[in-house]
């Protein structure tokens, strides 16, 4: 008896919509089991994780703060992943974006007006895009594996940040501690509803970016180009699309959005440049991208789901005494289930009780379409 996959003639619309929910449900079940194994009440744990954070207004604000960078980065990643460019270095682009944007208030401290913040944001995006251009060019010109180059650059970016805040950019008033001077009020991303919480405009940028990229991907020629190159570079070449240009485009968009997320986070939630600015957003965004099925609108929802898991993990730590490591485990499981459920979109799964594979002679018939790898 074995599992057999039969490719569907076209993607199942039902499962396209259903699979994220199915995956979430599976994760909840698995999470409950984990709580049981850890000796905690599963219902209490699940409540603390997924319902608790939604019950207070300030918590909803915190959700928005946490979700904003995740969504921004993931939207950019969706462009990359759809075109089969595996940008694993969003964390580094986030960091460089934060550095680039912070340069404005640090080098022009006397500039104090409404122009500062937009300049910072633009610089952040440009910085992130420039950092992403490195693996892009290396892949386009030298055929270098972008997974590894983008990842190595994450470490390099982190070390550059470390050097800057401990050395050239260190705040003289900080008693030799590593942090840059605090941003003045014109350089801080304003809060949306200061009375009820500290959610800032970052979430607005994220949603706007999601809508813009969704539009680009689904309604413009460029978006079509991106998706075709991702599915089949050969077909793309026949269509006159340049693989190299798509690589650069995808990485630049992704880097720009990650860089924007970086400067927004630093000038909004943190308020200055310091050695630690990201708890792994660049990597968590990868989960968000897949959970949102690489669709920018779905990514908005997925971003909130993941933000919920972070906040929930914290709450669970306090309320039921479970370790915060469960957060990563849940996120990993969620991605697993998402990917597994995605299979149902492309294939019908059948349990076959038939005899083992037919003799080689019979199987030497011309290979059908399903045996060819795609992408």
């Amino acid at each position: 008896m074995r599992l057999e996959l039969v490719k569907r003639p076209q993607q199942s619309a039902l499962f396209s919509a259903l699979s994220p929910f199915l995956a979430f449900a599976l994760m909840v079940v698995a999470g409950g089991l984990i709580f049981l194994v850890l000796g905690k009440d599963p219902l209490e744990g699940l409540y603390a994780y997924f319902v608790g954070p939604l019950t207070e207004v300030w918590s909803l604000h915190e959700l928005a703060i946490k979700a904003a960078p995740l969504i921004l980065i993931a939207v950019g990643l969706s462009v990359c992943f759809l075109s089969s460019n595996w940008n694993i270095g969003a964390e580094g682009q986030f960091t460089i974006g934060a550095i680039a944007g912070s340069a404005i208030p640090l080098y022009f401290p006397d500039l104090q007006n409404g122009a500062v913040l937009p300049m910072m944001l633009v610089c952040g995006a440009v910085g992130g895009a420039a950092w992403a251009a490195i693996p892009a060019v290396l892949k386009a010109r030298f055929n270098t594996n972008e997974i590894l180059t983008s990842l190595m650059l994450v470490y390099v970016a982190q070390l550059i940040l470390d050097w800057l805040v401990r050395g050239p950019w260190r705040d003289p008033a900080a008693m030799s501690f590593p942090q840059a001077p605090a941003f003045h009020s014109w350089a801080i991303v304003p809060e949306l509803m200061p009375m009820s919480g500290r959610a800032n405009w970052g979430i607005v940028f994220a949603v706007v970016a999601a809508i813009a990229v969704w539009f680009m991907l689904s309604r413009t020629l460029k978006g079509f180009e991106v998706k075709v190159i991702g599915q089949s570079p050969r077909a793309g070449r026949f269509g006159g699309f340049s693989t190299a240009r798509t690589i650069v485009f995808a990485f630049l968009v992704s880097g720009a959005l990650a860089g924007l997320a970086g400067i927004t986070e630093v000038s909004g939630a943190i308020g200055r440049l310091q050695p630690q600015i990201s708890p792994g957003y660049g990597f968590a965004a990868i989960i968000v991208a897949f959970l949102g099925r690489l669709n920018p609108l779905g990514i908005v929802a997925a971003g909130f789901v993941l933000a919920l898991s972070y906040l929930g993990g914290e709450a669970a730590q306090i309320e039921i005494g479970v370790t915060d490591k469960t957060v990563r485990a849940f996120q990993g499981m969620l991605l697993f289930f998402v990917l597994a459920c995605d299979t149902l979109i492309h294939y019908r799964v059948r349990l076959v009780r038939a005899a083992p594979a037919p003799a080689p002679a019979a199987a030497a018939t011309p290979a059908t379409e399903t045996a060819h790898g795609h992408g």
Partner: protein
Amino acid sequence: MRKTLFALAATTAMLVAGAAFAQDKAKACFIYVGPIGDFGWSYQHHQGALEMQEALGGPEKVEIAYLESVPEGADAERAIERFARSGCGIVFTTSFGYMDATNKVAAKFPDVKFEHATGFKREHPNVATYNSKFHEGRYVQGVIAAKMSQKGVAGYIASFPIPEVVMGINAFVLGAQSVNPDFKVKVVWANTWFDPGKEADAAKVLVDQGVDIITQHTDSTAPMQVAAERGIKAFGQASDMIKFGPQTQLTSIIDDWGPYYTERVKAVMDGTWQQHDIWHGMKEGHVVMAPYTNMPDDVKAAAEETEAKIKSGEFNPFTGPIMKQDGSEWLKAGEVAEDGVLLGLNFYVAGVDDTLPQ
């Protein structure tokens, strides 16, 4: 279905009841930057918290809540605010990087007390800062090192070039120089507070380069284990690491936060809590040396004598004459360094052969 509803209702009821009950007792909350099992910085803070709870009457009188491994970014502010909202009477934030977050939240919750370790900002009357004079222990270590070392070179695994660490290196060297004026130290900057692999590498490198004493300002027990393997002596950090090197550890600087936490939580309970900025050391019992082991009696006696002098206030490790590394004079004979200078220290004393990363 009914069972689920029942369970949910029961859970909610318990939570509500729990919240109401909690108002009768004090609640002290702790934010840790690392895991409490790290056997280093965060572990000691948690031990202090537990000691405090014990001293003030146990879990019926004082409730403790904590969050570990809280990153020093936006998450810190959320974590602190979460505590402030959940009925904590006092919140201890145990890392420098929480400084801005602590002050921001303190502004919103004037009735909650906040204590920030190793920081210097107190922007609101409900924020206090506290720190320990770890360098006093380093001086004693230096004395021991110079007496125990045959090669006259010690290896120093440092984390980041912040004033606390620089003070530590300087104090260590000064202590060693008081016994052997030509004592040398080799400094390796690990650029991490806690990474056993990297710390083990650093320790191995130092031993390969010929040192016969290892000391560290990083938090894991890996260097102690390497020293044990290689048959040399070492000093532990933050907690008593003797079980990682029974024949290896000479002593360890133990961060004893118990007495301080007890004092402050009691002050909150009594209503006598006041803002302050303290920097206490051996005298107040914040810095404790682990038992002196693996050394001959005369070295032990010298160590105890030095410790006693510092503890009584008779001797300050940073007493002149001391020259800076660049040759200029820092302290004249008998002059004691000012706290302000020490807390922002960014230069070496003469005799340290390393360039301070700027």
